[in-house]
């Protein structure tokens, strides 16, 4: 498939010392191949760059002294793992597919983790989970190195269990102020914040004895005793009893509930002697339990209004549907050559449609919208019912909160939301994103579906969210990097076990699993400075990424609220809203420390009348190009690939400039009044 007619940069023998990859503490080099050519996919002029390819227990690393493609560099800079990985590096858990490719042939052969390799591998293609494609050619590689690197890659990129991945870089996470929702106080604060009465925190799952996929503390109806809870749990799939996740001011609660277990008989009693009569009796019992739970939710409502039950299994696509849809999009966005690109391009829109991805996004938004309006307009509690209650219910529950709770639309609120709905309540990231080689049929990018929903929301209300779509995309990319522990495990319990395993294997080294949020507070570059530039530029690069991740329109709105007459005069009055706004602006614009929020302040209380409406019509939804075709460069029609002028991405630069100017004007004014005030 690759055309080597013009072997550009014919590799020279490296003689000035050996090239080495940058290793993190605890990282080990496993294999290396010299004189490897890396080809940018779809470049018509077939430019390849030569370098040395390494496989370590953390990453696939391509080391070259040649300059980096500007687009790759840009995309690298806006990733949340740029301090762990270099521009040409790939974390092993990011690898989705490995193909063997050969010279002059368009055929490629998929290599599974246990595939035997031929004596000579002419090239490898890596398709990453974020749809980035790497082509490596081993034409000039010394014999044997190609096969060794291939074997190492296949072996380590698809581990049998999660603890085989490189999960800890040996340094503790900085303080982020994001609750993990594994402690009773986190949930209690959330109950207080939403002022939702009649619910209590139960610690009955302390040793994951009740349910292994839920955190040790869960919020349940106040009238439900722990013993009843335990009994009820048995009747639900995954032994997951209904749990509270959010509440509205009127007292309506948002509850996630699993379906009652259909094969309960197999679970409870292994004896086959149980007759149909007994089974029916058990089914009836489950039904009763479900009804009892619903009744309890009903009674929790201060006005005793009927809860709305939404059966997500019926209304939303199945996990399999979502995955099939994603695979179609993956095919559409990883063309092998320009011919295929243009061929696909001709039917681009209809292929998008036939993937059904946008219709799934639309359905999720619609269901969320309906749930939100049941809560907001009818003050009705909503029970989201789904098979195990760990996938679509996370999507819908999160979306409902985004629509109704302005706190959740801030960066910190959003982080808390993900921590609560996805991490703590046990979305099985490991299975769904395929971090291990087990159960490929369990894979389904529900998480991406959610992020796309939020993306559409931000398109339609572009000043409503404190963060940008670029940040959502960065989160999607980050969810494949094993050093971000947030998206690696199936549950909190799985995380604890993996940690224990790591600790046991290596008792001397402390194991630190760092949540992805630590990026914001990070001031350390883990890689050697040569590859990522001097440490000076670390800050610069991070602040550039910050500008991309924070929504300047949101800040503009904050500033607009200071235009109210007299607001500027009240900036230092601690009870005024102007003071509060100014406090937030200061954090966002980065004077008060690395985090764009005050990590010690409590999350703000729920506000009324701040709900968003989202247009769910398919024609109003847009394909998320930055996500799906962000890595492909259009094969150039022109002779020079000069990027004549930077395109859209720079539109916010001017915005930021003026926002900063406003900020400094107000700040200097404040310091003047301060000095004058002191003089007085």
């Amino acid at each position, binding site marked *: 498939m690759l055309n080597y007619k013009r072997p550009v940069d014919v590799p020279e023998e490296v003689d000035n010392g050996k090239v080495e990859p940058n290793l993190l503490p605890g990282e080990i080099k496993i294999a290396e191949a010299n004189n490897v050519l890396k080809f940018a996919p779809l470049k018509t002029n077939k430019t390849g760059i030569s370098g040395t390819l390494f496989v370590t227990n953390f990453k696939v690393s391509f080391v070259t002294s040649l300059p980096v493609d500007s687009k790759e560099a840009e995309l690298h800079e806006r990733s949340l793992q740029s301090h762990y990985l270099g521009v040409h590096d790939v974390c092993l858990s990011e690898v989705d597919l490995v193909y063997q490719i050969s010279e002059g042939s368009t055929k490629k052969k998929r290599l599974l983790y246990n595939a035997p390799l031929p004596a000579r591998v002419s090239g490898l293609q890596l398709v990453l989970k974020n749809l980035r494609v790497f082509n490596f050619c081993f034409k000039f590689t010394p014999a044997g190195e190609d096969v060794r690197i291939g074997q190492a890659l296949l072996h380590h990129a698809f581990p049998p269990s999660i603890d085989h991945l490189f999960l800890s870089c040996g340094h503790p996470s900085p303080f982020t102020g994001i609750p993990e929702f594994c402690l009773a106080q986190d949930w209690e604060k959330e109950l207080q914040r939403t002022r939702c009465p009649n619910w209590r925190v139960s610690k009955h799952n302390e040793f994951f004895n009740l349910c292994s996929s839920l955190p040790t503390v869960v919020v349940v109806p106040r009238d439900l005793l722990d013993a009843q809870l335990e009994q009820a749990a048995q009747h639900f799939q995954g032994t997951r009893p209904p749990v509270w996740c959010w509440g509205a001011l009127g007292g309506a609660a948002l509850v996630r509930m699993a379906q009652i277990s259909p094969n309960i008989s197999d679970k409870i009693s292994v004896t086959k002697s149980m007759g149909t009569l007994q089974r029916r009796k058990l089914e009836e019992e489950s039904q009763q339990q479900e009804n009892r739970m619903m009744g309890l939710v009903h009674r929790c409502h201060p006005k005793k209004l009927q809860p709305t039950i939404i059966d997500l299994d019926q209304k939303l696509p199945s996990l399999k549907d979502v995955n099939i849809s994603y695979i179609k999009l993956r095919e559409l966005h990883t063309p092998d050559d320009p011919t295929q690109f243009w061929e696909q*391009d001709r039917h681009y829109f209809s292929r998008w449609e036939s993937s059904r991805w946008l219709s799934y996004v639309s359905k999720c938004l619609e269901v969320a919208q309906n749930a939100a309006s049941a809560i907001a307009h009818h003050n009705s509690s909503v029970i989201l019912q789904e098979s195990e209650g760990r996938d679509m219910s996370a999507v819908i529950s999160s979306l409902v909160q985004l629509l109704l709770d302005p706190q959740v639309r801030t960066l910190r609120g959003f982080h808390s939301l993900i921590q609560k709905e996805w991490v703590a309540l046990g979305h099985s990231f490991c299975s769904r994103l395929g971090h291990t080689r087990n159960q490929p049929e369990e894979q389904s990018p529900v998480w991406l579906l959610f992020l796309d929903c939020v993306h559409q929301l931000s398109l339609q209300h572009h000043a409503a969210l404190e963060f940008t779509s670029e940040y959502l995309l960065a989160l999607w990319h980050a969810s494949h990097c094993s050093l971000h522990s947030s998206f690696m495990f199936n549950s909190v319990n799985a995380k604890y076990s993996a940690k224990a395993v790591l600790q046991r294997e290596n008792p001397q080294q402390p194991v630190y699993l760092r949540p992805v949020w630590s990026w914001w507070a990070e001031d350390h570059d883990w890689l050697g400075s040569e590859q990522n530039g001097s440490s000076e530029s670390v800050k610069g690069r991070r602040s550039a990424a910050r500008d991309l991740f924070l929504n300047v329109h949101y800040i503009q709105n904050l500033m607009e609220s200071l235009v109210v007459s007299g607001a500027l005069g009240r900036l230092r009055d601690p009870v005024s809203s102007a003071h509060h706004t100014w406090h937030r602006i200061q954090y966002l614009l980065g004077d008060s420390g690395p985090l764009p929020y005050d990590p010690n302040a409590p999350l703000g209380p729920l506000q009324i009348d701040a709900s968003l409406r989202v247009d769910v019509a398919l024609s109003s939804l847009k394909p998320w190009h930055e996500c799906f075709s962000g890595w492909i460069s259009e094969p150039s029609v022109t002779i020079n690939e000069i990027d004549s*002028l930077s395109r*859209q991405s720079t539109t916010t630069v001017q915005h930021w400039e003026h926002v900063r100017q406003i900020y400094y004007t107000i700040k200097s004014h404040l310091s003047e009044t301060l000095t004058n005030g002191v003089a007085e």
Partner: protein
Amino acid sequence: MFSGGGIEKRGISKAVNKRSSSRRSSSSSTGSGSTSGSSSGSGSSSGSSSESGRSNNSGSSSGSGSGSGSGSTPLGSPPHVQMASHESLNSESKSSSLNSKLGHESAGSPSAGSPSPPKSVCSSSSTSTDQHHHHQLAHVLNATSKLTVREGTRTLRPDEPTLVPGEHMEGTAREVTYLCPYTGPKKGTLSVTNYRLYFRSPETDPPFELEVPLGVVSRIEKVGGANTSRGENSYGIEIFCKDIRNLRFAHKQENHSRRMVTEKLLQYAFPASHKLPFFAFEYCEQYPENGWTVYEPIAELKRQGLPNESWRITRLNEDYELCETYPAVWAVPAAASDTDLRNVAAFRSRGRIPVLSWIHPESQATITRCAQPLVGVSGKRSRDDEAYIQHIMDANAQSHKIFIMDARPSVNAVANKARGGGYESEDAYQNAEVQFLDIHNIHVMRESLRKLQEVCYPHIDNAHWLSNLEATHWLDHIRCVLSGALRIADKVESLKTSVVVHCSDGWDRTAQLTALAMLMLDGYYRTIPGFAVLIEKEWLSFGHKFAQRIGHGDDRHQDEDRSPVFLQFVDCVCQVMKQFPHAFQFTEDLLITVLDHLYSCLFGTFLYNSERERMEKEVKTKTVSLWSLILSNPSDFENPLYNPATRHHVLFPLTSMRHLCLWDKYYCRWNPSMRPQEPVHIRFKELLHVKGQLERRVDELRRELAARQTHDSPRVTSAIV
């Protein structure tokens, strides 16, 4: 839908009015002088005196120009009074138009949190959301006539439109129902002037308004007959518009208002078919800027650095004799004599010889445009033409090659040989490389737009939106045109090689390609005056047949010569603009305004087919230029994000489908459910406003502080003393 049978029972004169367009046009041409008379006759024969009375009334008012009777109050006031009232409205509209929201804020009622931003730049009249689609047009009209105030402060009847200078009422029908496809039927008053149709319904708050310049109308059909129409709102007219919408009005049969309205509409929507002048010749608004002076051919060539040693300027075509569809002034290779030019003209279709469009300021590589060579089936050659192409190549010292870009698919180019046309053979033209750009002809484009309209209006089939959109191939054609232009720009910029562009006649696809390539290459054309020059030069002076392609004032709606070629060009500009938001001095509002007046016939700019025809009709002296409106109100169109430094950059847009998007702000603007995103440039304007206000507040506080200190300090000193 159209119940012809019912009509025929009523009488022959009506049936003639009712049938297909060709019949109608013949009937109107035969009896153009006596239309009103004959219709009133038929009206009285049908038994209603009131109807005939009214139609007579309005007929006489149109003749005399002074109002009488019930429905024509505004005509009662003499013209100068009207003018004055318009001016007073003018001053008001200025404050309330563009910065309506900002002005509102500065007045001291800022909305905390998230203020709802203005949806369109000039919107000020009605802001109810369900009126979104009518609102859009109001915006354009406001920009046009600067008559934005609709409520209060005027002595006219509220259900009649504010007239522009030169406009007068032609008729009014009451109790007419507008069948809005989005918000349901609305009852109100329908007025027809010699410029527009105006409908107002007081049923909603704010009142529902709809204004359509009659130039936009492509076809008018009666719906339902007197005896066949049973259901509610089944008797009326349907108006098909060139701007992708259809309007349906239901009349009450017993009011007998339909005939008058239809007649007036037919007359003023299709003046060319009725031997009447375009409204542009009656429109007499005064603008501070004169748009007719924006393009001076010699000045534009001088700006490009011509004449120089290789290129000369010739007035050989001053009388439009050598080529009647070309402009008077040409830039041609200096090496070619006038005789050469005449000989070349004989070998090019319609005498449209290669003439310079643009020259690269550094490399001297050029873009020249022409029509196809008359090669024919026998493969004729012209030594003069070959030498001429060689001259064009030689005029550029940087390259020993020349590209001939044939915009057509190669099959079509070959097929043209049968009709005497064809393309240059690379054997005959040494050093020339012929490339085909695969852009389809006007008929394909027309069909594509028709399909697009079906997909966009009135309702969108959400489940199949993307595949339906793809099936129209509209974006596919856009992609083709864009990538063709990109190829030309690339050859000129990157290879420093000259390019000759042609299609069959060199006035449709060629104009698209040269104009777009020039827009990419030369930042001047991305300024507001520059864009006007580009359109004046590449489209108007080089004879894009606007009259034919748009069908101005012509009732033959099925005319095969109509095609959205210019719309397609504007769409391409918008695509480039979206990819380079900093590179254009204007926003898409300018593009939409241009498109609206492409049809409106308010301005003389787009009337007629060629420079020659416009000279003959004295368009420049008798009508107002669209550029007068635009250059007089630049702030309505300016892009706050514009970075003038980009002027020296070349734009190479991406042309794959995934980087193109449907211009929903234009095509779907009537649909209130398609709420396009708030453009970033408006957001940016707001930011600058907020910045200004905050800076002012800070200054105030500073002064206050200083004042307090000077006030305080003596007290302090006295305390010490």
